[in-house]
């Protein structure tokens, strides 16, 4: 069959139209799939009740549980310290609560602190490699493969939630858990709200380990969630809200 210019152009035009139509259709299909996944919005947050936590002041169950499942190294030298969740005196955790007469119940009492998973995270803004970023569900995630150890995020975080590995952490981990990676020297680490446990439908390790149920984890976008109920019922504090970081860890007072 010999094609003249007219039939060639006709066939070419029809094929182009068909191709365009197909890609449009698949694009529509794709967007529908995306919509279905986004139909249940999530915003993970935590509500902490320091009074429940203080029932047993020396308790370190949550800290131990976190350190264990995340292979957090334990350095004897405080300068090399790596911490995901730890206790801080009330006045240090809430320096903006400038009250010389803090209630006895809270005065110099240890408060649990960790990454606030801010809505407006300053660490994310400064990261030059996008090794840390905010997920759609609000978790300020870390990709340790991508961290170059510049420590901008450590400097940017107003809560001291980030630790740098000055030394190889491996020899300083009491018991290796093969289900979670360790980090290497020259990498920053912090709490990730147990993203790996959430993916398996579990609660964060600290929440699960607390016998007093002082830590409650849940979805802020769900009006029927336990965290929303607690926030509705109680007056809560957030750490350094004046900085505009919108921390998502709430403390019941």
């Amino acid at each position, binding site marked *: 069959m010999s094609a003249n210019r007219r039939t060639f152009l006709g066939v070419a035009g029809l094929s182009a139209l068909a191709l365009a139509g197909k890609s449009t259709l698949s694009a529509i299909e794709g967007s529908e799939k995306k919509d279905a996944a986004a139909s249940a919005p999530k915003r993970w947050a935590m509500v902490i009740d320091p009074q429940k936590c203080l029932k047993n002041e020396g308790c370190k169950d949550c800290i131990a549980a976190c350190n264990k499942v995340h292979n957090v190294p334990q350095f004897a030298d405080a300068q090399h310290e790596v911490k995901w969740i730890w206790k801080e005196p009330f006045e240090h955790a809430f320096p903006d609560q400038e009250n010389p007469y803090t209630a006895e119940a809270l005065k110099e009492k240890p408060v649990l602190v960790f990454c606030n998973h801010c809505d407006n995270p300053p660490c994310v803004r400064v990261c030059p490699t996008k090794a840390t970023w905010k997920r759609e569900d609000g978790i300020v995630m870390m990709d340790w493969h991508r961290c170059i150890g510049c420590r901008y995020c450590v400097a940017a975080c107003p809560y001291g939630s980030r630790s740098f590995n000055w030394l190889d952490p491996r020899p300083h981990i009491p018991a*290796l858990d093969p289900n979670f*990676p*360790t980090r290497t020297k020259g990498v920053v680490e912090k709490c990730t709200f147990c993203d790996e446990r959430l993916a398996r439908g579990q609660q964060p390790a600290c929440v699960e380990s607390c016998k007093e149920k002082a830590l409650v984890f849940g979805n802020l976008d769900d009006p029927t969630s336990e965290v929303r109920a607690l926030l509705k019922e109680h007056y809560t504090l957030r750490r350094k809200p004046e900085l505009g970081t919108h921390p998502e860890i709430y403390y019941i007072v």
Partner: protein
Amino acid sequence: MRDRSLILAGLLLFLGLITFPIWYNLASGASSKEPELKLPANEKQCVASKETMRTTHMEMLITWRDRVVRQDDRTLRTADGRTFEMSLTRTCMKCHENREEFCDKCHLYAGVTPYCWDCHIDPKLARRTNG
């Protein structure tokens, strides 16, 4: 050209010496021997064909890494419809439990040093160090 025989003999000696490692390996049969990998005893089928795994497992692992860490997408659907968790230690090393006899042997032969285990923990090593 009075020294022809000397020069030729010298050249032959030189060639012989410089190619000695090749002759030596050929004679001992070391260079023709591919590493013998210890395959999992109770699992016959990997997530993809042997050929695919052999040539592209590194790219596959990088893809898994990005999908898991950056997109929180942890489920792998294989071409034949099976599903797996995308995880080096929790999936790959569940079957390929012997790192020295499987991963390391071939990597050593190919002269590559992947840094996976700088962070990810070989379950066997964990058992050994934890006692």
